[in-house]
């Protein structure tokens, strides 16, 4: 058996089988996630078709600058995690661990900036159920927009949070030299997950921030 035989769980014949299983498992999980968020995007589409004006005007409450920074942060983090995986594949360790920590920090930065946005929303009183003081003919329909905005970004934020924890664990394991060119499946699947988090945001950003801004 090879040097990494210890990593092969007893139900598997060999490391290759284990790697196939883990990768396929993560892809399957991502397909579930896509449908999970798909409901929110479908609900968004239906409500926006019903209330185009309300969605356009509510969308102008979102902060395009902060949203843009968040997008940049997440995209960069996807890049750093990809670099980390490549470094491990080439036999690296320290740089990879640092890159993973960097990715986690970017994830935290994303959450912090988003928290700032939520705080601004609180001050502007556009959080349905908590503090909502919109008035005007479209207030009821704008509330639907904010509701979907909070559910969507809330679930996305939860995914970012889980991703950050996952990345930090991977950083520690990388640092302890548990991964090498031969075996780094957990790292690879964690990176896959992180890319999904990123891709979901790529849809959230234009849908919620850029509607009604020509």
């Amino acid at each position, binding site marked *: 058996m090879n040097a990494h035989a210890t990593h092969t*769980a007893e139900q598997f014949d060999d490391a290759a089988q284990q790697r196939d299983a883990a990768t396929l498992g993560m892809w*399957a999980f991502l397909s*579930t996630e896509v*449908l999970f968020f798909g*409901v929110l995007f479908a*609900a968004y589409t239906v409500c926006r078709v019903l*209330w185009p004006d309300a969605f356009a005007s509510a969308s102008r409450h979102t902060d395009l600058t902060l949203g843009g920074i968040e997008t940049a942060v997440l995209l960069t983090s996807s890049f750093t995690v990809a670099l980390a995986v490549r470094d491990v594949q080439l036999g690296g360790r320290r740089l990879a661990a640092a890159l993973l920590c960097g990715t986690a920090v970017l994830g935290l930065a994303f959450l912090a900036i988003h928290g700032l946005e939520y705080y601004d929303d609180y001050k502007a009183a556009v959080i*349905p159920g*908590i503090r909502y003081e919109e008035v005007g003919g479209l207030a009821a329909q704008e509330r639907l927009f904010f509701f979907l905005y909070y559910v969507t970004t809330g679930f996305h934020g939860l995914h970012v949070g889980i991703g950050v924890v996952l990345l930090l664990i991977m950083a520690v394991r990388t640092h302890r030299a548990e991964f090498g060119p031969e075996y780094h499946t957990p790292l690879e699947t964690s990176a896959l997950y992180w890319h999904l988090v990123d891709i979901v945001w790529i849809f959230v950003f234009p849908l919620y921030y850029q509607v009604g801004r020509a």
Partner: protein
Amino acid sequence: MLPAEHAAPSYLTDGNTLRSWLVTHDHKRIAILYAVSITFFFFLGGIAAALIRLELATPAGDVMSADTYNKTFTFHGVVMVWFFLIPSIPTTLGNFLLPLMIGARDVAFPRLNLFSWYLYMAGGIFTVACLLLGGVDTGWTFYTPFSTMFSNSNVMLTVVGVFIVGFSSILTGLNFIVTIHTMRTTGMTWFRLPLFVWSMYGVSLVMLLATPVLAMTLALIAAERLLGVGIFDPALGGDPLLFQHFFWFYSHPAVYIMVLPAMGVVSELITAGVRRRIFGYRFMVYSIIGIAVIGFLVWGHHMFVAGQSMYASIVFSILSFIIAVPSAIKVFNWTATLYKGDIAFGAPMIYALGFVGLFMLGGLTGLFLAATALDVNLTDTYFVVAHFHYIMVGGSVMAYLGGIHFWWPKITGRMFSEAWARFAAILMFLGFNLTFFPQFLAGAEGMPRRYHQYPAEYGLLNVLSSAGAVLLAASYLLPIGYFLWSLRFGERAGNDPWGAEGLEWTTSSPPPTHNFEEPPVVTEGPYAYTHP
């Protein structure tokens, strides 16, 4: 008893403490954990069913109040659908047999498998607690805006419980898909897989891709109740039909989660009872996949009178007819498998033939409901109730029990009383028909479902139905008795007491923890029965 030195300990004796069961990673032990739990939930749901039939024995609402009745049928629906029918065959027989049938040591992710069981139990206990403490009166369908704005019952916590159970289902599906893709033993090609494995593959796809839609929809309901916002509530600018679309996008495929595994089980039972290859193996495989895929495209047939557009209804109607074709293929192939067989009528075979008959009636009445013009009259009546009970109880539960009988010797290493088992199977078939056939008639005469009291002209049919329920209840209690008896006093089973083909019958009964002494090698297709 085999001499200890030449046999590995069976999975049942490999650790005897409670802890060894609660932290086990062995797919066979997890299957037992599930079997015990779903039996518990089945009887809980059954008690609710008994109360419903008791109330409906007379036209007046005289046993319980309208609110209690509404909570009772909600309890029955929620528990039976999410805590019994959906997990039933996949988590018990599926967990136990899938690795054995493909010659693997375990599923791909054993820890995840155990975690799924804990999720299931957490969701189950949480939901049942909500349903019992205060109760929920929305029906298992949670239609909005009733569930979001009008019901004063415990909707929010209940949907959270179902949400949790949804993840158990997703993770089981994920585990099975990966297991079937990556863990097949040498020589076990895709077209050498037993049909039960194929059915697990189809059902896993549906679990993986439909359940998240339910989960998020229920999360939205909880959030709407919490925050007082309504994307499903027209009074707040939302659309109640949107909820129905999301709900049925999951819940129609969920019917196939219930019936596809049953089809897989029955294919195994019939081939073993007939000692012959399945007729049209490839068509059976294609129809499983066809049903799983087309199952995603027919949800709108629940909404013909709900206010969806006429054109949408036309499309959903034709698709619903089309999905009946693969089901018809399966019935014909099972029938043709009998030809030139060597047919024995053991209890599993009686269950399997009972399944074919009841499934056929359920399927044919489904066509009535797929025909838009007839659906207008029949939907939301007892015709629908009878139809889906024929599929789910007559179909899935018959197949589940047939499967439990068939693999009981493998699971426990003991034989059960064949005479009692045959008696229970026949009683179940008769009791089932007496319970649910009158409901077809009541529905065709217009009796609406979810009615606490009803016009007197439906009285006779309901008395018949309640009488049948007594027989049906007895036939469900009987197996508990003779199975428990067999655990202690049953004759020991050899590796292959039925003379059946399949890798699971090549290892000992009960199997050792790692299933096979040596990894098996497969050289031919399934059901390679030779003629006597």
